[in-house]
């Protein structure tokens, strides 16, 4: 059996399947349809979805609700994230599990509200002060909008960090005929709560890379949360030793498992010396380009990056083996290419870009990339 579904609905389905019970958002193209789906559907499972007074409030509501025990999500476009950049920092500092959907549009500023782009790929990583890591997943299709939303919720719980789902106008708004089986849920990672009877130390970790257990405000433990540098009890501190431990922990908990969650969809052809790297909606063109090239007898490999952050170093290095030319196809002027250049030393690296609001065509990737 098949269904006709767009990316926004698939994201909403994924969120509810992952246990999301709270959503707050503010209308902005092309993310509005996710807000509408959540407003319509979340109350059916006992959840709450609310339109906030702006994006900053939407994030604030989500962070508050997460502390009270809800699994939370918000959805916006680049301009919305610009507004609440500081709240991303708060969620990192307070170790708040949450999912943020970025439906990228052509920027900067109001840019092209209903126009595709992939210009936020570095922004979501570096868009808040301090430079601490987040996780970002990047779906290419309706199917992955569902599965990666579920993964995003699971990663948010595992790592207690905001997880971005980096989509774009095309991925969110295009409807596709898909098999209904693609909406089969993956196992859900529940929130890891501290045992009710044990003493609770809100930010206690044995090893730097450990993730502290949570307690819901209103539950069996007293919870202390702060946006300031804090000790493990959640009290503001400037003690260099404690501050150092906190900041290293925020990075270490993600970096320690970067390869474990570094998903790359690799289609490597033996003997190929050219590799196309792409992500999101552009990966669809790249996949078609590879099909065309192979149809003509040209050997070419493909790496579709699903986990944009942390950079899946091991998986990408594997894909670079034997490769002389790496073609990075993206709808910006080479933003993710920086990461490839850093990892693929010795290769000839070519960027294929578009920033005119149109999709890259498969032919463009092959021609500009010098593959055919």
């Amino acid at each position: 059996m098949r269904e006709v579904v767009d990316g926004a609905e698939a994201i909403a389905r994924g969120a509810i399947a992952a246990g999301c019970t709270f959503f707050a958002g503010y209308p902005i193209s092309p993310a509005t349809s996710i807000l509408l789906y959540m407003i319509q559907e979340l109350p059916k499972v006992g959840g709450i979805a609310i339109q906030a007074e702006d994006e900053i409030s939407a994030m604030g509501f989500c962070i508050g609700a997460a502390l009270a025990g809800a699994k939370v999500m918000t959805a916006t476009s680049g301009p919305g994230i610009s507004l609440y950049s500081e709240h991303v920092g708060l969620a990192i500092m307070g170790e708040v599990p949450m999912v943020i959907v970025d439906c990228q549009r052509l920027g900067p500023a109001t840019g092209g509200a209903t126009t595709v782009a992939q210009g936020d790929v570095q922004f979501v990583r570096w868009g808040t002060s301090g430079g601490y890591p987040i996780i970002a997943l990047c779906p290419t299709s309706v199917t992955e909008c569902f599965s990666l939303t579920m993964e995003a919720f699971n990663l948010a719980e595992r790592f207690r960090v905001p997880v971005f789902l980096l989509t774009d106008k095309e991925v969110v708004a295009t409807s596709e005929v898909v098999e209904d089986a693609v909406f089969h849920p993956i196992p859900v990672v529940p929130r890891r709560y501290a045992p009710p009877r044990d003493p609770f130390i809100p930010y206690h970790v044995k090893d730097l890379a450990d993730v502290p257990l949570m307690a819901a405000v209103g539950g069996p433990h007293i919870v202390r949360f702060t946006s300031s540098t804090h000790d493990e009890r959640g009290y503001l501190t400037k003690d260099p030793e404690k501050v150092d431990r906190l900041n290293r922990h925020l990075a270490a908990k993600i970096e320690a498992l970067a390869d474990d969650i570094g998903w790359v969809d690799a289609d490597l052809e033996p003997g190929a010396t050219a590799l196309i790297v792409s992500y999101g909606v552009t990966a669809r063109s790249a996949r078609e380009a590879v099909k065309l090239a192979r149809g003509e007898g040209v050997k070419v490999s493909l790496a579709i990056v699903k986990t944009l952050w942390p950079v899946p170093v091991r998986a990408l290095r594997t894909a670079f083996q034997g490769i002389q030319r790496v073609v990075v196809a993206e709808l910006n002027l080479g933003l993710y290419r920086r990461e490839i250049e850093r990892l693929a030393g010795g290769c000839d690296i070519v960027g294929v870009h578009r920033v005119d609001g149109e999709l890259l065509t498969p032919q463009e990737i092959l021609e500009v990339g010098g593959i055919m």
Partner: protein
Amino acid sequence: MNGALRSYLDEGSLPFHFCPGCGHRLVLERLDEALVMLQPDPHDVVIVTDIGCVGLSDRYFITNAFHGLHGRAVTYATGLKLANPKLVVIVLMGDGGCGIGAHHLVHAARRNIGVTVLVFNNLNFGMTGGEHSATTPPGAVTSTTSLGNLEAPMDICATVAVNGAAFAARTTAFDPALGHLIAQAIQVDGFSLLDIWELCTAYYVPHNRFTRARLEQTLRDLNLPTGVIVHRKREEYAKAYRATHRVLLGQEPFQRLRLEARYPPGLRTRVSVILAGAAGQKVRTAGRFLSLAAALSGLYATQRDDYPVTVMAGHSVSEIILSPEPVLYTGIPKPDHLLILAEEGLRQVRGRLAGLDEKTTVHAVPSLLPIPTSARVVPLDVEGRRGVARKTLAVAGVARFLQSTGLLPLDALREAIQLSQSAEIAREHLAAVEAVVGH
């Protein structure tokens, strides 16, 4: 809990670390007094603090604590209360936080979200060096208004009162009844705010030779009344939300249309179709019917829509790819078929027409002919037919197009239309189909 709590202050964190004479200590002691009166379980109380010296206050209490960003405390309070309505949520913020987060106060009051906001209003920024705030009186000297403040002060109580707050009151930190007033505010089932005027002995007092007497005189000079400003009954938002949405609870989320392939497709390779029309012709709806009909014919399809932000005016273009294989690249640089249904649609695709050749068939409504293109052009005879209105023109066009090309069976289209959520829409569109396909 064993017996009544005699204090909600954390002995281990005391004494207070505020400047000598600072009003914050007085207010926190009165807050403790109010909590002792009400005896909530500390596990159910969360003290949310905003920016500034007042932001240090949560450490003194044995309750839950949330310290967030400047001006945004009310947003976290809202999220906490929405997610768990049994929580007693108390926001402690200064006049600085009220300035930068003023609109959150307005919207929390409008919603009547059940949190209590205590404003520690000492008329300037105490933590960052005595700069003027949204409540600094006119003429007052601060580090950023050395020649006297030129701005009118914000009346916080009036602001939230006029916007629907259930309760707002103003007093000073010296008020012996402050503890009772705080308890009253906490008991309000809705948004409550206390504007509590106090002294900043580090900055405002020395800069303005301010005293308790002058603080009280300033309130009179500015015509800012003290006491309860508003107390009204309104349903609290977190409760209202749950009550209103109870009708949806238990319904299966998402209307899932599972489509069985039961019609033979008339295509074996990928075919791309662009529908170019105008707002109001239901172009996107026609595109969706085409996608559904494709699924009913065992095919895959993608649909991309393009329309201006003014949804009821201008063009509406849908790009649909029908394919026996899942579709990868969803763009259509050169369509196999281009249906032009309106002048607005023609304008939108005009740039592409020049690049087309005879591999493309342009199906245009007769009123738009001739079309300047090298593509093959055929008339799409759907205008002026009985049973075809503007709002069913795109579907009629698709029906006629399918009839002439045989790409999908018309019965697949008919069934797709019948899947519409609205029976009326289905009926209108089916009538339009029958009007153009003849017998």
